[in-house]
């Protein structure tokens, strides 16, 4: 039941926030904060109960599960379940949820209730995506989170918000519908094989079909997840959406929505079609590497701070894609860490960008510079997250990226080497960003004020998480371990790493020449 609560509390909180929006706009804020904080506490409680070795649980790594009929006529059930992977992402969702409410505290002044309604419902949808185990239910949540997100961008965004919001919506909706078609294809394929019509993930696992069909269906899933992730060349909605969204919207987009794509890959695309995913993995890894480099180069070129950060997401999520399609334990663990850390660090960068925009009313890097002397705390925090995004060891992102690369090296030496050069470009854009914003002499008066207590508190939490994961990632790793092992088992033994490891030795030799 606790899983239902996780989704229901933000839904209710959002509704309450909206209904209570009568004059005093503090009420909706507090209600939302309370709702999402309760969620966070629930998630923490679950984490504390999380069994040390979840993968020895019978029947998979699910340690909380809810199942009831929904539309029995079509084999649709209301099936939520949580394993370590979902747990981590749910915690991330609640954590960034708290941050996104907090970072809107002074930024949003219009239609506060409705804003928080949308915020909470987006979060609820995301929670649902991470928990759903019925493919129809998954798709339901997948689509559900779009509408409030659309409103967040379209109503509270910046100059070009409508364009960005529509672009975002159309990209995700179109790819989502392709996924729906693929879900249905799988549904019928399974029914043809077994005579049972069901959307239940656990039953659909291991459906056998001919390779061409499996590949087509896998691509249907993949396109939805790659758009969300986003992978090159399906990424172009992201810079617009991230740039135009209000701060909370950017935080949720970058921190959580992108993770739903990665989660989908991990949970559905690969385990449901292991062979097709295996066959496709060279292409996917190439796309990942292209994304890493392409996003990094574009980030370097940007003049708009939020746009810059947005392109870094393209680059960083490339590592996740690389990790997922390397599909060995190292790479998968790395992808999970990268998801969590990218969520937090990019979220923090967007919050900073938002704080800057509140102060100097611009995101143009050309108009910034020299802010360190006026706002040293902001500078230090900006530096910190800049370093996190370039993958400085000791910070969480490093663990993620390096585990992915370690894992990917087992599968493809060439891809790994190219991806590693992305680290150099990441250095260039991160330092460039810090340089442009904080260093140099301040040209324009007045001097912006430094981060306040609320903002500093948020930043402190986020920095703590990044350092904690950077130095002691084992709590995260052991949480996702069981889940990832189960996923790898359910995908069967023919995971790419097993096959490719035979070729890794000569590959390494070639590289050495």
């Amino acid at each position, binding site marked *: 039941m606790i899983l239902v609560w996780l989704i229901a509390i933000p839904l209710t909180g959002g509704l309450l926030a909206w209904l209570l929006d009568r004059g005093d706009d503090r009420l909706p804020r507090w209600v939302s904060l309370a709702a999402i904080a309760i969620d966070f506490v629930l998630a923490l409680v679950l984490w504390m109960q999380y069994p040390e070795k979840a993968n020895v649980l019978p029947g998979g790594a699910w340690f909380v599960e809810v199942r009831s*009929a*929904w539309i029995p006529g079509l084999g649709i059930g209301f099936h939520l379940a949580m394993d370590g992977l979902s747990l981590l992402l749910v915690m991330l969702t609640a954590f960034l949820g708290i941050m996104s409410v907090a970072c809107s505290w002074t930024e949003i002044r219009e239609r506060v209730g409705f804003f928080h309604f949308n915020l909470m419902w987006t979060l609820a949808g995301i929670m649902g995506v991470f928990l759903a185990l019925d493919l129809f239910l998954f798709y339901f949540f997948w689509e559900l989170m779009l509408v409030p997100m*659309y409103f967040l961008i379209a109503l509270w965004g910046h100059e070009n918000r409508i364009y960005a919001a529509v672009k975002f919506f159309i990209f995700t909706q179109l790819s989502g519908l392709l996924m729906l078609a693929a879900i249905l294809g799988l549904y019928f394929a399974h029914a043809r094989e077994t005579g049972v019509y069901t959307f239940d993930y656990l039953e659909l696992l291991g459906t056998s079909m001919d390779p061409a069909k499996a590949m087509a269906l896998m691509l249907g899933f993949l396109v939805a997840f790659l758009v969300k992730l986003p992978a090159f060349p399906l990424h172009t909605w992201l810079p617009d959406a991230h740039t135009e969204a209000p701060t909370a919207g950017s935080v949720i987009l970058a921190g959580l929505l992108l993770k739903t794509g990665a989660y989908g890959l991990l949970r559905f695309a690969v385990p449901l079609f292991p062979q097709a995913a295996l066959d496709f993995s060279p292409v996917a890894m190439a796309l990942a590497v292209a994304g890493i480099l392409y996003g990094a180069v574009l980030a370097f070129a940007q003049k708009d701070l939020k746009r810059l950060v947005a392109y870094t997401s393209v680059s960083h999520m490339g590592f996740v894609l690389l990790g997922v399609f390397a599909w060995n334990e190292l790479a998968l663990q790395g992808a999970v860490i990268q998801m969590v850390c990218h969520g937090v660090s990019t979220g923090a960068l967007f919050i900073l960008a938002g704080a800057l925009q509140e102060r100097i009313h611009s995101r143009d890097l050309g108009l910034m510079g020299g802010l360190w002397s006026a706002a040293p705390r902001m500078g230090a925090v900006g530096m910190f997250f800049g370093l996190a995004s370039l993958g400085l060891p000791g910070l969480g992102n490093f663990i993620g990226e390096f585990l992915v690369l370690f894992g990917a090296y087992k599968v493809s030496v060439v891809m790994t080497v190219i991806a590693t050069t992305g680290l150099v470009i990441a250095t260039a854009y991160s330092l460039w960003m810090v340089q442009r914003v904080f260093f140099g002499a301040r040209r324009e008066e007045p001097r912006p004020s430094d981060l306040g207590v609320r903002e500093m508190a948020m930043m402190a939490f986020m920095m703590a998480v990044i350092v904690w994961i950077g130095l002691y990632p084992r709590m995260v790793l052991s949480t996702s371990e069981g889940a990832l092992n189960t996923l790898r088992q359910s995908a069967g033994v023919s995971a790419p790493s097993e096959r490719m490891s035979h070729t890794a030795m000569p590959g390494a030799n070639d590289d050495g020449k």
Partner: protein
Amino acid sequence: MTANDFGFLAPLLAIGIAPVVIMLAVAVRRSYVLSCGLALGGIVAAFLALFAVPQGMPHRVTSLLIFDNYALLYMGLIFASTFAVTLLASEYLAARKGDLEEFYVLLLLACLGSSLLVVSNHFGAFFIGIEILSISLYALIGYTRNGLSIEAGVKYLVLAAASSGIFLFGIALLYGETGTMEFPLLAARTAAQGTNGLILTAGLALVVAGIGFKLAVAPFHMWTADVYEGAPAPVTAFVATVSKGAVFALLLRFFAIVDINAHHSLFAAVAVIAVLSMFAGNLLALLQNNVKRILAYSSIAHLGYLLVAFLASGAMRVTAVSFYLVAYFITTLGAFGVVTVLSGKERDADDIEDYRGLFTRRPWTALIFSAMLLSLAGIPLTAGFIGKFYVIAAGAGSALWLLVVMLVLNSAIGLYYYLRLMVVMYVSPGEEKVAVTLPLSVTGYLVLAVLVILLVWLGIYPAPVIELIRSMTAGI
């Protein structure tokens, strides 16, 4: 004809007698409220009569009509929709001048024609039903007698009559080839003849073309926007829902008896129509600024989607079409309902600018309209989502992948204008527009509230309705 037959005919009789009563009442004394009330009473009576039909379905009354669960389901849908239209129209019309009582006579006649369509088992009945419907609609569309309304009426009349000619010719060809106009017999003889008779196929194609006009599918769609725009908003709602739904129900019944999958060339032609409709509808609506026209074009696209399910085979086909129609009825009635309650005396609220900042002026109306638009776009928590899911499922189940992909692409295009319309309502109005300030229409909002509740209920928990539709359409 036996007493038992009359039991089955009761709903039709009720809906047929009501206009006569209204006419008589008007002859005695003109009373708007009375005729409106009588109309509502007639519909309610007809609806209740649906529950009182005798045992022994399916039951044929002469060779013309057949009463089965399927017919009852669609009659129920038609009656309920007409009821909603009547309520919407009551206040809409009350704000206007002129003789208004006859409106309900025409509306009930149109309803009768529609009902006849869903029980017809014979081209004769089909013809009579569709003409009763059409001729009533000519008058209804031109009812408010302003320039646009008349223009729309004339256009509809000319084109509908021409398309009647087309399907009549088609029926004549079929009849000439098979010697019968009774559906089951026709199907049997067609099957016996083989499916590649030239005249037979041409006849079927002509029938489909004529029906295509009523359904407003491309390339027979061009009247739609003009008629939707010119007709009074409640009539538009009726045209968009009841008239299309009834014709589609007939189409579905006919081609359930005459297996369309056996007619490959016809199947291809209908597939082409489906694709053309999707693209034409969505592309036409893309940058349109008139809300009624947007909804018109959107309905063209939706009929295209519906044809995808129609072309599917297997058990899911009828359920998918029926569920989609139910969702579509609710959504479309809701959308035009919003247009109706926002419309002023002079003209309907059909300019997109009328909706600018609606959320600040009338939050609930804006939300209802948003819900309807989201449902049209097929977003979760609305009936439209389940409907679209069902349609794609039917298509995927029959491996109509090309059509499914087209549907998916078009949904994305369609999204653009739904979102465009939606976001206009939420942006802050530049200066407070006082163009449309009507007193709140109580019955109108009542209808809208019920529709929204149905919409969300179907979106969240569609299982009972799906089961109902399944059991009711099992015989087809």
